[in-house]
């Protein structure tokens, strides 16, 4: 056995270090941009939240006083509650709907992809534009689409968006209309990964359609469902733009009317401090 080490480990180390340097510098631009734009402001926001800020003036460190003020504010609690209600109600509508659509579409073959495309068109639209569009549909006049429906039933046209009972369901319908199909894509992908033989095996084993769905499809779809639920939760909890548009907050900076402040946590951003509570 030779004991010579012909290639010096140091020489080969240089190669490894070079590769590391190349790798890191290829990642650097993206990383720095993401840190500067997504993380730095969050940290700055947290810093501001510990200070008393009046417009752009920093009037000193106040510790957790802003948070204390926020948690004492009944409106804040109400807003959080409404946000959660909106989010979970929208989820409860969107997920079953998306599942139904996914199962229908994956059974339809080539027409299914046409239908999926059609369903996805609203998702491609801007939330604020969707809001404008639905405002027109919901306009409380016999000439509006919904107004005409009320008139057809002999009722005076209602303004659903200011009706304390119906505003929330209306927002939910519009939000679900806009993006439930996005969840459908992921569920179709998940359904596609379930081996077809399993359905055959289940049929041979004597399971009915519903039983087969419940005992085979649903458990195997769980990972996709989890992804869908988490994506939709984030999406609905942050459904700011749609709600600004629908509830007529109008131009940014004008104080929002009731549904806005009461449905999303971002309502606190109207007073200074987006994710950062402000002292009032």
């Amino acid at each position: 056995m030779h004991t010579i080490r012909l290639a010096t480990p140091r020489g080969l180390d240089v190669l490894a270090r070079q590769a590391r340097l190349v790798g890191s510098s290829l990642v650097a631009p993206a990383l720095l941009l993401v840190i500067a734009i997504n993380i730095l402001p969050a940290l700055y926001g947290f810093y501001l939240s510990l200070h008393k800020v009046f417009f752009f003036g920093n009037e000193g460190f106040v510790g957790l006083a802003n948070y204390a003020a926020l948690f004492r504010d009944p409106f804040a609690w109400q807003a959080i509650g409404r946000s959660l209600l909106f989010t979970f109600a929208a989820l409860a509508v969107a997920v079953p709907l998306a599942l139904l659509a996914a199962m229908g579409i994956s059974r339809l073959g080539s027409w299914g992809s046409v239908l999926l495309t059609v369903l996805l068109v609203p998702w491609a639209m801007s939330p604020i534009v969707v809001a404008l569009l639905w405002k027109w549909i919901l306009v409380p006049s016999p000439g509006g689409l919904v107004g005409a429906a009320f008139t057809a039933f002999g009722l005076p046209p209602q303004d659903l968006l200011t009706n304390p009972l119906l505003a929330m369901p209306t927002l939910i319908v519009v939000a679900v209309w806009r993006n439930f199909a996005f969840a459908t894509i992921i569920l179709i992908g998940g359904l596609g990964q379930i081996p077809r033989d399993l359905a055959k095996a289940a049929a041979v084993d004597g399971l009915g359609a519903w039983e087969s769905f419940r005992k085979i499809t649903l458990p195997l779809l769980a990972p996709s469902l989890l992804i869908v639920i988490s994506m939709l939760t984030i999406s609905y909890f942050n459904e700011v733009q749609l709600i600004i548009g629908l509830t007529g907050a109008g131009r940014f900076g004008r104080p929002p009317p009731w549904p806005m402040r009461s449905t999303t946590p971002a309502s606190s951003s109207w007073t200074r401090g987006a994710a950062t509570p402000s002292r009032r």
Partner: protein
Amino acid sequence: MTEARPNTAQSVRFRNVGKSYGSGWAVSGINISIAPGQFVTLLGPSGCGKSTTLNMIAGLETPTEGQIMIGERDVTAMKPADRDIAMVFQSYALYPHMTLYENIAFPLRARRRRTPEAEVDRKVRAAVKMLGLEALLDRFPRQISGGQRQRVALGRAMVRTPTVYLLDEPLSNLDQQLRVQMRSELKDIHQRLGATMLYVTHDQSEAMTLSDLVVVMSNGRIEQAGSPRELYDNPANLFVARFLGEPGMNILDGEAADGRLRGPGFDIALPALARTAGRRISVGIRPEDLHHDPSAAAAISGTVRTVEYLGSRSLVRVDLGDRLIAAFLPPSVDLPAGAPIGLSPADPDKARFFETDGGASLHAHRNLAG
């Protein structure tokens, strides 16, 4: 095929090459010397380090220690592109967005080679003709069969008369029949090109049929290097003895005393070279070297467990109490399961003896590795 091919075949030398991934050595102490034009196979079970070794010649991995020479050039830290080698991958690695023609022409069109298009065309057509792919040049890889893809991968290697061909399990994705056919084609191509080829496989029949030199590896080390015949007839250790052959050599561990080796179900005379070796000795006998011996003097006696009828012969598994051994017997030997059976070595000189501890052979060996 009349085109005169410049013979660019080079030698390859490994000097004490090792590769560590931090947590341990994937391979170490690799010394191999390959003459120009040789067909060398790295053979071993998966994870034995044979692919790592091949990748280090290709430059896809850099050794942690040691030196690799191609011809007179030290390529240890050289980029793959600078080594002038060709490689055929297990997955073929055909470029999916290029036609077969473009795939085969790709190496020639590399900037460093500056091949004029007329010459590219001539070389591609020559390679394609040799492989019988003329009709498929405009197809894309996804439009052709596995065997055809295999040929395209070979064609891409052949167009450029490299110094060394590296083949990483090139036949393992083919079905059995095609594999045997491509095996002969590969052998034919090797002989016609006179190229140095380094072949990695876990399939011993490929290694045995194709190679001038077989390097058996396990656990990142070379177990033995030699011609297929040497490896088969005179394995250097128990690993090689068990690994080669289908089924492998029968190994019987026994106690040496009074010039005989005894253990459960057997009693065999020890040759002179094994008499001084200590008490714990194993004997290895290939299944085809055993014959049916109904006499009371049979060296091995046990009971028949199963008989697999193979037409020209039968594979009989014999239970010795603590282990099963295999024997190829004439189909006329027809014993039911459970019947007692006696076996003796057909040619006592073919029995191999090993140290039970460590597994080293007691017979003399040539070391071809390095």
